[in-house]
């Protein structure tokens, strides 16, 4: 298996490099100018030109590409155009912990509730409970997250002000002490994590229900019941592990989400996470930041897929890598 992983990682290098090269040219060929902000009345026409010179955008495209390549090979992805010329990985390092917190909590909630609801629906197939859970799951699954978030804010922060509207902490939360600070942070995360996880859990519940129904009909489940095992043991020990195989693929594909963040939620709840970094970089035509983000998310998609394949092999002895 180690050789397999090594091979996959080796193939990933030219793949990611290709993605970065493609991104480099696409964003430079797209309309828009990183210095466009400085083209306005009252600002000397020289400024945009000076800014472009600073960013190295006056060179011909192939020259820009080779300069960029030389820097990237030395691990230097450059400085952000739009964020005070900070090194791009500093920008990402500031946004990442926030995104990680939200995404990790969301994923845990997603899989926990998704799997639980899926099992209940499958075991109680075609009962009122199953129909109720199915309809509810579909209801939330089809709801746009940004709209749901705004509705939650209006309901639970405005009409019934239980939760704060936005931000990561109250103003002056530092004076609450470490525990108070953490509780305040948790309080601020309830709404966004709920919004994200309800939607995600609904989707996972559908997967789990489907695969669980398939597994429950297998002969070895009938055998297990015939042995006189309790229903709990049959479902959790025998059926669930096999039913979770497709869910593992979902876990692999969730890895990029942990790092790329959820844009709408970050905008609505004013969290300075990766989703906002990426989208603001695109709007500001912040080339180095766009490429660094592409590098991170590209690598994670490749790693996520690899991770899913490896997990699959670990969980299912029939699969050999």
């Amino acid at each position, binding site marked *: 298996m180690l050789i397999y992983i090594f091979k996959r990682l080796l193939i990933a290098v030219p793949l990611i490099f290709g993605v970065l090269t493609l991104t480099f040219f696409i964003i430079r060929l797209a309309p828009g100018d990183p210095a466009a902000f400085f083209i306005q009345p009252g*600002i000397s026409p020289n400024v945009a030109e000076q800014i472009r010179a600073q960013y190295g955008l006056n060179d011909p495209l192939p020259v820009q590409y080779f300069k960029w390549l030389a820097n990237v090979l030395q691990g230097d992805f450059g400085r952000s155009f739009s964020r005070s010329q900070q090194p791009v990985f500093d920008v990402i390092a500031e946004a990442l912990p926030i995104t990680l917190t939200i995404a990790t909590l969301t994923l845990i909630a997603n899989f926990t509730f998704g799997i639980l609801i899926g099992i209940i629906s499958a075991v109680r197939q075609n009962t009122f409970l199953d129909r109720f859970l199915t309809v509810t799951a579909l209801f939330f699954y089809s709801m746009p997250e940004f709209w749901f978030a705004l509705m939650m804010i209006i309901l639970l922060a405005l009409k019934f002000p239980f939760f704060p509207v936005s931000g990561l902490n109250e103003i002056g939360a530092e*004076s609450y002490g470490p525990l108070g600070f953490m509780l305040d942070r948790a309080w601020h995360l309830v709404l966004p994590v709920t919004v994200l996880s309800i939607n995600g859990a609904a989707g996972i519940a559908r997967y789990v229900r489907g695969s669980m129904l398939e597994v429950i009909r297998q002969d070895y489940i009938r055998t297990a019941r015939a042995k006189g095992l309790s229903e709990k043991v049959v479902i959790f020990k025998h059926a669930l592990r096999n039913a979770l195989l497709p869910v593992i693929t979902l876990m692999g594909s969730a890895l990029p989400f942990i790092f790329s963040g959820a844009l709408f939620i970050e905008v609505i709840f004013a969290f300075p996470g990766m989703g906002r970094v990426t989208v603001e970089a695109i709007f500001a035509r912040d080339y180095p930041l766009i490429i660094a983000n592409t590098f991170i998310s590209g690598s994670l998609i490749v790693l996520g897929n690899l991770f899913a394949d490896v997990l699959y092999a670990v969980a299912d002895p029939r699969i050999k890598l």
Partner: protein
Amino acid sequence: MTEKAAGRVSIAFKLAGSLLILLALLTLSSCSRHNGSTGKGGKSSAAMDSTLVISMLGDADYLNPVIGATVTSSNIFGLIYPSLLQSEFDTTTGLMNYMALEKKLRAVTAGQGKKAPKGAIAKSWRLSDDHTSLTYILRSDAFWDDGKPIVSADFKFSYQLYGNPVIASARQQYLAELVGADKGKVDFDKAIETPNDTTLIFRFFKPVPEQLALFHTSLTPLPAHRWKDVKPDEFRHSPLNLKPLGAGPYKLKTWQQQQEIFLVSSRKSNLPKPGNIPAISFKVVPDYTVRLTELQTGAVDVVENIKPEDFTALLKANRQLDIKTVGLRVYDYVGWSNIDQAEYRKSGAVKPHPLFGSARVRVALTTAIDRQAIIDGYLKQYGVICNNDISPSLKWAYNNRIAPHPYDPAKASALLKSEGWLPGTDGILQKNGKRFSFVLYTNAGNARRNYASVIIQQNLRAIGIDCKLDVQESNVFFENLQSRKLDAWMAGWSIGLEIDPLDAWGSDLKKSRFNFPGYRNPRIDELSELAKQKMDPLQARPYWLEYQEILHRDQPITFLYWIKETQGFNKRIEGAELNISGTFYNVDDWRLRPSANIAQ
């Protein structure tokens, strides 16, 4: 499958809840450490009474006056840094007034002069008789926050930074009159002299009106002793940018990027004094609906640019809110290509546009558009019909004898008919086989322009003009506009407080970068030059009156409406004077009423 492994799955589910909480706390604690390193506000929420919270759409770019280019940045660094002069927009005349400690450019008119000149570093100034040199005498009791005195050399040093092409300051235009600027490079040895710590002399290569000279020489200074070792190519990413050393009423306490900028009143400041409110938090809230909600819940005190459609619900939901207006500085317009843009791009030849090339057609288009309906439907009392680009707020120059082109579809049809545009079989006007059909472009994400564009489309359809609408992403729209690829578009301008129209209407299309319609009238160039030569702006008034008449007659674009910017305020703020020169221009004088005293 082993029993042991299956057992783990089961246990995991039983413990899911507690695991969730445990992990939550773990991740949270790592996160809190991260935040702890970026700074501490050091205030308890019980003391919200002493913190003013202002929401902002995005973070400041730099808290450095040389390179901070956004309005948000200048609002904030304006509180941190001192200024050479105090300036105030006089709403009775529409002229800027500049004040030193012991001298004012103009006498303060009744009801004005809310801003005391105590914050100025200049005691007085003297402009030479030939208007080519300006000498400031500085006070000797002004100090940076680290205790070092503010001296004339700080100003000279700062102007060298503003003028350095490697630093690329957005304010280098302010140096355009200094000695050497006419030859392409300011000669700082001659242009700015500092014979001693309290004397600062600016020299110009040509006579400059006093108002402009004061405006252009009063850029915010940086402390030279702090910045002198920073190389120009490292200036934009110097760590000093995160720790501004100023002398104004507020100091930066923490800056959590993309989240919050926290200022505290600077107790030692005498420029003009420590800010009244102990702390100001500028909080980033990118989403408009959320900003409104926070204003309603009291989590923020000020939200800028509230849409008129939201006023009723907002004021009904919370009676502690107030809408304040500033204006008129912003207008929307429909741009018509006066010249054939495709031909101009190809060969540089200037030919009239096949649809919009004639002034009479453009007047017809303006007459066909019901501008009042757009105002009544969207802006309500916060909009005023716009005749040209001189704001009614600039009273000294505004021509109030011009009557707006009235909404009159019949007259519009008659004008078009006289130009040879007659209805075709499909009901659309035609001339020499060409249909009057075009695409009206606008940028995405502007509800007001979307609303207006739909009304314009209907109005034009009613007189037989086919107008299709297209919304483009802002960057793409702006690039298309600049490269003259659009025939008709809807956009807006925010005007400067000094009138200088050559960028927008100059006949030399290569020089006037913002003359997107390609409008050319030599008289406009003449009038602008004549006005610039007058050393007293009031003497230039006749030129500006004529200028407005010409624009009204030629309608290079259809001027739609001036917009009063509308800002939401919590009523616990007292003493807020909004001014066309900025919502926060006297924020150091604002006070917060303690929450217990707020009447319901």
